[in-house]
């Protein structure tokens, strides 16, 4: 692959990269000036649509399309919510962007608010990013002083305020409507859809929720053009008219059992194996990869033999994963127990389930209870069937839950049990020789008289 020159991470190694002076010296806010001067909000939306930019928060929904859902004639006000809640295990790219290049993020927000006619933007920032908070607040103050924010920005008929709204440690606040409910001061129970946020969102007004990285892509598309964006990545499948393709650069986070965990920016579609071998230094201690998560824990696992798939929006689907997700790659080597992996995953989702809808609230709880029992040496082969049954039936894909947390909870279960079933069977047989064939739970009285 030809050397790719980073655009999103272009500034992060500069001394003082988070400061306005450094950002402007590198050409920062030049795009903002030009766009406000030369383009209308509708014109900006057109460029973004033409670029086929897809959201980087996990769902991969085409951004231009999402923006086009905003009602044409509505008295407003319109809102922009910047999803900086980044809580998907394995994901840290937004953090790096906000800590080391906050102005890039802000310029992207301002441009997107211009396009979506939002006059107030809230950055919903997870609590656990104190440095990002500090850097963003400082950068926002610099912007207000400079006139990039506030009333009549740069002399144009466009006013915008950006506020940072700090979260309190709940993964579900990364879900669009969960974020909105949390911002409104309520418990973060995602809303049923319809209505969608573009029609009825924050404070029941038209709202767009976008991920941090997506908004920085907006900036660069407006800077260099939609054609530039489409020259990078994986083109759409000519045989499938509904495939928007996987265009543009992507921030890939790699963590786990690799030599050089970290963040790297590459065109969408890098093969997973190449990412691990060439950009993360391969596996530690010369070991072999056993299981690799392609895009944050929700996406499930791939086996070593599946690592040649491209990490774009469609590649992971081909090996039964939920999708590209957040492109947070987690590498686990041959020494790691998949029972531990699945227990960790089920524990995470049970802890984070908002509890609103029955299948997720109870299903995730049941799953972790079973994994605990399996880990404790009292597992049954029947448990594997039950876990798969739960996983196959919860989520927005089958339609049984309100939001996609359940799908995220299900995919690790599905992929782990289907790809590593042997390991589970062996573990259960070895740790529970006397009871692994039981078809049903022990009678109630047996538990009471323990």
């Amino acid at each position: 692959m030809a050397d790719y020159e980073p655009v999103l991470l272009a500034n992060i190694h500069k001394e003082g990269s988070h400061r306005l002076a450094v950002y402007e010296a590198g050409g920062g806010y030049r795009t903002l000036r030009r766009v406000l001067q030369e383009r209308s909000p509708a014109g900006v939306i057109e460029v973004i649509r033409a670029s086929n930019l897809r959201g980087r928060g996990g769902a991969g929904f085409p951004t231009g399309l999402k923006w086009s859902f905003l009602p044409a004639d509505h008295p407003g006000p319109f809102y922009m919510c910047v999803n900086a809640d980044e809580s998907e295990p394995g994901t840290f790219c937004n953090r790096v962007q906000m800590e080391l290049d906050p102005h890039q993020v802000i310029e992207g927000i301002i441009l997107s608010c211009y396009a979506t006619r939002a006059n107030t933007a809230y950055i919903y920032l997870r609590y656990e990013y104190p440095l990002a908070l500090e850097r963003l607040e400082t950068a926002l103050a610099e912007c207000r002083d400079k006139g990039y924010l506030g009333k009549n920005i740069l002399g144009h008929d466009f006013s915008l305020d950006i506020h940072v709204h700090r979260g309190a440690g709940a993964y579900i606040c990364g879900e669009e409507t969960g974020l909105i409910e949390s911002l409104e001061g309520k418990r973060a129970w995602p809303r049923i859809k319809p209505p969608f946020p573009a029609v009825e969102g924050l404070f029941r007004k038209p709202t767009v929720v976008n991920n941090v990285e997506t908004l920085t892509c907006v900036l660069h598309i407006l800077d260099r053009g939609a054609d530039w964006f489409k020259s990078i990545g994986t083109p759409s499948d000519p045989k499938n008219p509904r495939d928007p393709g996987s265009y543009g650069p992507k921030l890939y986070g790699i963590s786990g059992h690799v030599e050089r965990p970290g963040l790297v920016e590459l065109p969408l579609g890098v093969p997973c194996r190449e990412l691990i071998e060439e950009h993360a230094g391969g596996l530690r201690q010369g070991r072999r990869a056993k299981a690799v998560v392609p895009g944050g824990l929700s996406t499930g696992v791939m086996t070593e033999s599946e690592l040649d798939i491209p990490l774009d929006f469609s590649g992971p689907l081909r090996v039964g994963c939920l999708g590209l997700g957040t492109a947070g790659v987690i590498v686990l080597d041959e020494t790691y127990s998949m029972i531990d992996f699945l227990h960790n995953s089920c524990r995470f989702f049970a802890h984070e389930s908002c509890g609103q809808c029955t299948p997720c609230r109870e299903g995730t709880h049941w799953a972790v209870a079973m994994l605990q029992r399996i880990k404790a040496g009292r597992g049954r082969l029947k448990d594997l069937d039950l876990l798969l049954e739960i996983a196959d039936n919860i989520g927005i894909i089958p339609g049984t839950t309100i939001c996609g947390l359940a799908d995220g909870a299900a995919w690790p279960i599905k992929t782990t049990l289907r790809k590593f079933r042997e390991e589970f069977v062996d573990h259960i047989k070895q740790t529970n020789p006397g009871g692994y064939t039981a078809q049903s739970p022990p009678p109630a009285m047996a538990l009471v008289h323990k």
Partner: protein
Amino acid sequence: MPTTERVLSDPIRTAIQAYYPRYPNRRAVLLPALHVVHEHLGHVPQQAVVEIAEMLELAPADVLDTLSFYGFFKQVEPMGRLRVWVCRSISCAACGGEDLLEYLCRRLGIRPGETTADGRVTLEFAECLGACEHAPAMLAGDTLYKKLTKEKIDDFLASLPS
């Protein structure tokens, strides 16, 4: 309505009121207000809940509903002077994070969620701190500790002001 001494001092109230212009209604100020109170008092006691409700024109139940959802806000006792979060999500766990959490529990003599008797440290487990490239990671106050080891934990504990 119980008549007890007010716990939200004027500085706290002023800090909360500073958020009013940012939002179209008072209810949206709730999460920021909870953070303000939690930072100042180390927890959000019941009296604070009542006062926050008054300020924001909500019912106390509305405040508690939101507060208790997050599991972040201490309610009964103030947290320690330093709150230490040790990540237990998959990247950190795969790099030994859970064992290190156990080690820290033993060294401090408390379980996750608890505070040391001298009030210095509250220990918590965290779900994915978003610092996976530095696994195993720990957030102590506002400082991120990277690639944690037992030795680093020992050093960290030694560095704590008594």
